[in-house]
């Protein structure tokens, strides 16, 4: 469900203390990843699991951990 997916992005953004601007850009980044073929394993739509979202957040922010 879109609502659950968006809520998970919010939760991941909070986990990494993203600014509002970063959080909004993170949603765009995740969609760009899917469009580029880098898809998650959560379902057939290529959505991301919680662990994958955390990994994507690190990637997006340029953090190792």
């Amino acid at each position, binding site marked *: *469900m*879109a*609502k659950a997916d*968006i*809520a998970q992005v919010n939760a991941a953004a909070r986990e990494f203390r993203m600014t509002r*601007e*970063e959080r909004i850009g993170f949603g*765009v980044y995740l969609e760009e990843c899917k469009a580029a073929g880098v898809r998650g394993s959560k379902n057939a739509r290529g959505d991301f699991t919680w662990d994958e979202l955390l990994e994507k957040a690190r990637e*997006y922010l*340029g953090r190792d951990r």
Partner: protein
Amino acid sequence: MITFIRQSGFDVEERPPAPSPSPALLDVVTKLLREQPFCFFRIAYGGELQIHLGEIREFPSARLRRRERGSYVLGTRASAWVVYSKGESTLLASDRDAVAGLVDQAGPGVGADARLIEEGDYVPAGTAVKDVALHRVHDGVGLRLRFLDGSRVDVLPTDADREDASDGADDELPDWELLDADSHLLSVGPGVKWSYDETD
């Protein structure tokens, strides 16, 4: 993937908006968005439509392929949306339910990838917001943006009964939100509650 309806040859006829459910909220939204130029649409994760307005800026992350953003970002969150393009005589909607009961002329339409909205010239870049209106949609507050060229965007909070109670969302999402040029956040919904956080 959300259902996306694109229907050409659409007559962009407007019904008069209902009285605003919150004059104070309308005042805030009007002050923020009136006369702001349209930049572009973006689809974000979860099928959320973002409407970028104002001046072009860059997102801070170097990982974004398309780093441009508007200085004002209206996020539709999990709400439905309808875009009425005057120039293209086209209606685009997040899903069929968004159109049902609201637009008499809507036919079956054509399902398509929602990201197509990013490529079209449905609202010409630079077209300013003429005015905004608020109206009750189900138990929430709907938003209508009207542009000077006659195009408009409706944001339509969905009926709570339509939501899947087992969707696992323990985070209460607003029905829509607006990040302004100073990174202040206006959050509207669920229901009629709203807040405008002017802290950084």
